[in-house]
């Protein structure tokens, strides 16, 4: 099922570049339905909804996310400071080269996608034109990079990312980040926060790819519209709304991820560079995983 979807996505991306200046069905054959449905009581209100959201809210929320999330972490950093774990202990091998490669590929995609996406969101302050249009094209390129990364990433980690009993406790104690105390945090190889980020990246990311591809292609017919009972234009409006909200969530999580990796815990990023995690880090932050490793005498 999944495979078919990817196939469809890839072929349609190819098809888009072949298509000439042929009529779009949106302003071609479908225009009648699209126009007549707009603003009618029985119809979806996606048009006005999209307009209102995009005109008044999206940009503000993005700005809010960009300002508030880092601000919150700054406060966190200033008040609670970095967690520091010993880097002198044993090192535990957690990420193979391939996994790290895939991670950094995804990271590269994010480094392309998020700034270019934000350039479009705030395009008016950049004067639009070539600069922002280039950003739009790079956004598409970034998507392909992300697509290449997200599939293996999903396959590597999906089993380990399934929810466990630890996750609820982790959430309840906010991962221990609201305290300076070094305490054992209930978590397996991946804690609930990481799992959230994983699902955000894989499922949310797929959603971003799907909605983004829809917005990019405009003309496609894979039954999505009829499945949702929407006209093509309403499907696009739906996609645009979803794309924006997902983007906000992903950006917020991305900032968190970066903060966690770079600032919250000193030197934690090395695990994604070398593949090894500090034993102390694992003992405290992934206590269940540590116990499991202990049980298996791998530490």
């Amino acid at each position, binding site marked *: 099922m999944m495979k078919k979807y990817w196939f469809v996505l890839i072929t349609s991306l190819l098809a888009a570049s072949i298509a000439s200046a042929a009529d779009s069905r949106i302003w071609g054959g479908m225009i009648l339905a699209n126009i007549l449905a*707009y*603003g009618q009581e029985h119809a979806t209100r996606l*048009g*006005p909804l999209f*307009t*209102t959201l995009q*005109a008044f809210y999206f940009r503000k929320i993005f700005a809010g996310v960009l300002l508030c999330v880092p601000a919150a972490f700054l406060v966190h950093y200033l008040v609670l400071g970095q967690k520091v774990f010993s880097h002198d202990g044993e090192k535990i091998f957690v990420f193979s080269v391939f996994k790290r490669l895939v991670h950094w590929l995804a990271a590269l995609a994010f480094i392309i996608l998020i700034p270019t996406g934000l350039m479009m969101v705030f395009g008016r302050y950049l004067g639009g034109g070539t600069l922002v249009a280039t950003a739009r094209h790079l956004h598409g390129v970034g998507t392909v990079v992300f697509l290449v990364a997200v599939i293996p990433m999903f396959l590597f980690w999906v089993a380990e990312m399934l929810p466990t009993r630890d996750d609820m406790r982790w959430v309840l104690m906010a991962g221990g980040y609201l305290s300076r105390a070094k305490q054992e945090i209930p978590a397996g190889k991946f804690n609930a926060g990481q799992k959230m980020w994983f699902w955000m990246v894989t499922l949310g990311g797929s959603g971003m790819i799907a909605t983004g591809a829809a917005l990019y292609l405009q003309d496609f017919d894979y039954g999505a519209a009829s499945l949702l009972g929407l006209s093509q234009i309403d499907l696009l409006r739906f996609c645009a709304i979803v794309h924006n909200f997902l983007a906000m969530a992903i950006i917020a999580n991305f900032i968190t991820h970066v903060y966690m990796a770079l600032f919250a815990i000193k030197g934690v990023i090395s695990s994604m560079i070398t593949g090894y995690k500090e034993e102390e880090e694992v003992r405290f932050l992934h206590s269940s995983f540590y116990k499991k490793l202990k049980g298996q005498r791998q530490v």
Partner: protein
Amino acid sequence: MENAQGNAPSKIGRRSFLKLAAIGAGIGAASAFTAGKSLRAASAEEIKNPFPGSKRVKTICSICSAGCGIIAEVQNGVWVRQDVAQDHPISQGSHCCKGIDQIDLIKSKQRVKFPLKKVNGEWKRITWDQAVDEISAKMLKLRAENGPDVAMFLGSAKFNLQQAYYFRKFTAMWGTNNIDHVARV
């Protein structure tokens, strides 16, 4: 038969309301927003002729028999723009899609550009002189063999009056009544 006076107003009311509602869907929805600061002064609009030195030629559409007027703007011998003849007594500026596209007829890439002759299944470009020489020789040969009724002449409504009259005369002097045109359609 409905009573026009009696029924019209209520019907009109509803229809035009619906119509305005359709238009209003955009405008109405948008009225929630404030326009003020988005207005921008129109750019300088000195009336300039986009085709300096062009002349406006009055002519007639070559598609249907309604006979709509056309204003052709011609610059340096090139038909640069087709404009409407608002003051034409029959069309009053109106055209259908065929009429307003007459300029494309002139400019079409698919025009026959030079005389052509089919030789063994292939089209060959020839000169007018060659075409006239060869065709007339063949026509005269056929005439000598079978007489003037050997040829059928098809004229058309594309002709203007003068051409149509002369085509009839041309055929008569060739010596046949085998002449017809699209009136028999």
